[in-house]
């Protein structure tokens, strides 16, 4: 049985082009603005997923590669 390299399938399945990274909302900085909402969820649950973290890293590296190509 031949050895199979799963790298191609893994790379294709990451689909980082459609990875939507949650944008942090800029909180209002007024004196009466609530500093912290205890009931609100701290972060998007997707961001704690390992594949999401890897995808985020990949996106940064991809941007750097594109920057190098455009120079």
């Amino acid at each position: 049985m031949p050895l199979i390299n799963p790298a191609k399938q893994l790379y294709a399945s990451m689909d980082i082009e459609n990875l939507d990274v949650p944008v942090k909302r800029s909180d209002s900085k007024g004196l009466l603005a609530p500093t912290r909402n205890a009931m609100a969820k701290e972060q998007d649950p997707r961001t704690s997923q390992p594949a999401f973290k890897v995808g985020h890293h990949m996106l940064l590296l991809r941007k750097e590669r594109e920057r190098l190509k455009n120079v």
Partner: protein
Amino acid sequence: MFDAPIPGMSLTHELGARPWQSPPQYTTVDEAVEYYLERMSTDEFMDQMADVLEMNIPVTTLANTIQLAGVMDGKHTVDVGMLVMPLLMEMIMLIGDNAGVKYDTGLTDAPNNTTKDTLIEAVRKEMQQKIDESEEEPEAEEEVTEEEPKSGLMARR
């Protein structure tokens, strides 16, 4: 094909004697990513990787080899290695782009109409052998001696 392990080969050592049979050094993807990025960011590694990419070795093969070495060294599990592999590919491609090397990603299927160099070499050797044989044959024919003229009483003149 002949590099495949023989049945029962995994049982020839005591259980736990191999690095991958004990708990891994990096248990999470974050730790593994940090380990690889730090290691791959060194000048020495980048120079070596650029050399390897110039040899036209696919990025997929390199990434798989690197993560497999990590598993065998007991750095992380196979699962973490699978998750990290796309990142390794992206990092290798970044190194290649940074060094200005034209590399093979391994993501596209190899075209079937290309002929391998080894096949061309085999055909060339075969043809050369045939040419050598055909050059040797005429020398053997020259050895045939001419018939001596008959000088008997009954010989035709």
